[in-house]
């Protein structure tokens, strides 16, 4: 398949999502303890962020330390980049963000369930994609202020910490039944991603 045909096949749904009415309008948690804690709390209260991060971390853990390092490095950086894009004031359509979010959970769950052998670069790319989408979704439509940038750093730090904690669960796994259990968890996450995608297509963007 030529690149032009592939683009013609893939582009229309994304263009349609982009052109959908409405802007993504996230809201940030206010703890009263400063923007860094606000960001950490926002991540902690957002299952749409936590689930794909944990799923991808389990997958990276099954693949080995090098994969974990690559992904753990890419995730927070991409989260901040995605967040800056979200804070930029561009009219990000909420449905596109929601679909991408659901697709990331589906993809991460699929990777974990299949326990595919991947290169560290693939893990880093997946973590980067996830970070971009989650960071964007977390703050899309929020004004660019120094406090919100610090909140974003808090979210990215929390995401990185949860990634490391979750990856360390599967890194030392050698027993078959434990690996199978992790893969079953992946299939559940993929199913959740599929459900979320269906929900978004049927009822519209998920509230953040």
């Amino acid at each position, binding site marked *: 398949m030529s690149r032009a045909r592939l683009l013609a096949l893939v582009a229309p749904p994304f263009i349609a999502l982009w052109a959908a009415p409405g802007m993504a309008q996230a809201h940030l948690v*206010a*703890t*009263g*303890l*400063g*923007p*860094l*804690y606000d960001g950490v709390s926002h991540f902690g209260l957002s299952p749409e962020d936590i689930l794909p991060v944990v799923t991808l971390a389990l997958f990276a853990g099954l693949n080995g*330390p*090098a994969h*974990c*390092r690559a992904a*753990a490095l890419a995730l927070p950086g991409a989260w901040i980049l995605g967040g800056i894009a979200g804070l930029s004031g561009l009219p990000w359509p909420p449905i596109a963000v929601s679909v991408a979010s659901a697709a990331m959970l589906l993809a991460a769950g699929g990777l974990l369930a299949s326990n595919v052998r991947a290169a560290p670069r693939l893990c880093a790319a997946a973590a980067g994609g996830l970070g971009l989408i989650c960071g964007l979704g977390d703050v899309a439509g929020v004004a660019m202020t*120094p*406090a919100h940038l*610090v909140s974003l*750093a808090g979210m990215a730090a929390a995401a990185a*910490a949860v990634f*490391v*904690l979750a*990856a*360390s669960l599967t*890194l*030392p796994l050698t027993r078959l039944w434990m690996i199978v259990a992790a893969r079953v968890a992946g299939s559940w996450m993929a199913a959740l991603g599929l459900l979320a995608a269906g929900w978004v297509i049927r009822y519209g963007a998920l509230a953040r």
Partner: protein
Amino acid sequence: MRRLLAVLLLLLLPGLGLAGPAAAHEVRPAYLEIDQTGPADYRITWKQPVMGDMAIHLAPHLSSGWLEAAPAAQYASEGFLIRTWKVHAAGHDPLAGQTVSIEGLKDTITDVFVRVRPAHGPPAETIVRPEAPSFKIAQGGAGSAGVLAFLRLGVEHILTGPDHLLFVLGLILIVRDRWTLLKTVSAFTVAHSLTLAAATLGLIALPVPLLNALIALSILFVAPEALRAQAGGTSFTIRFPWVAAFGFGLLHGMGFASGLTSLGLSGASLAPALLMFNVGVEIGQVAFIAMVLALVRGFRLMEVRWPRPATFAPAYAIGVAGASWTFQYAAVVFGLAQ
């Protein structure tokens, strides 16, 4: 390189909101008391924590509009802004069915302890939280807060207090083995439990600015010790970290007490509240230590090889935050700042 890192952290930390005095530990709950002083007379007291001239926006309301009138008195005590109203309301149990709401609460993590003291019968207490910033007063009083509410208050108090957490992190960086960690954490626990109880019971007290300055100084103290330990050096604190943990734990316990003393608990309700609050603090502390150790294990399993300056970054961060808070609170103690 270390100096450069220290300067960078010094510049970055205030911006991150870590080193501001309000962020240091402003999670003390507010307090609303409705006291029936006569058959149709009520005295309502609102006590809100403030730090210097900074306070989060909180305002109590009653659906009857009693609190919309100007307060009979308004004054500042040490660390608190206090307002009182005197209300005359005839009728049978005019409080029953009224809704208490706290404006601004949902934007904070502070709780509001509400106590209703009827003229006859036992007082009723409840805790209003940000996720449900209003409640309806039932016939005969507010309800019962339950001891579990104080457990949660204790957990929240330590987990939202970066000063205590940084001190504990400093201790973790100093200790070299699990047995020493256990002894150090136990010493800290015993010490802060002693002074938490003593301060809550009113047996000991320190002025809040001085206490905050001393707690900040304890954080500043552990940072160089952590650096020395990581560089392979030794000192009395590194050999016997539980001694420092016990000594400074006495100060931190008085800091924990600020979460309870503002509630004005007394009598039979004090002992279970104190116990559960302390248990909550321990749960929060153990959870924090477990998370730090789990992260360390995670990095080890990931075979992360940190650049040497990065290994010193946590200790520098603790030191910079401790120094910043020490200067700020010392300025308050010596009357140079509010």
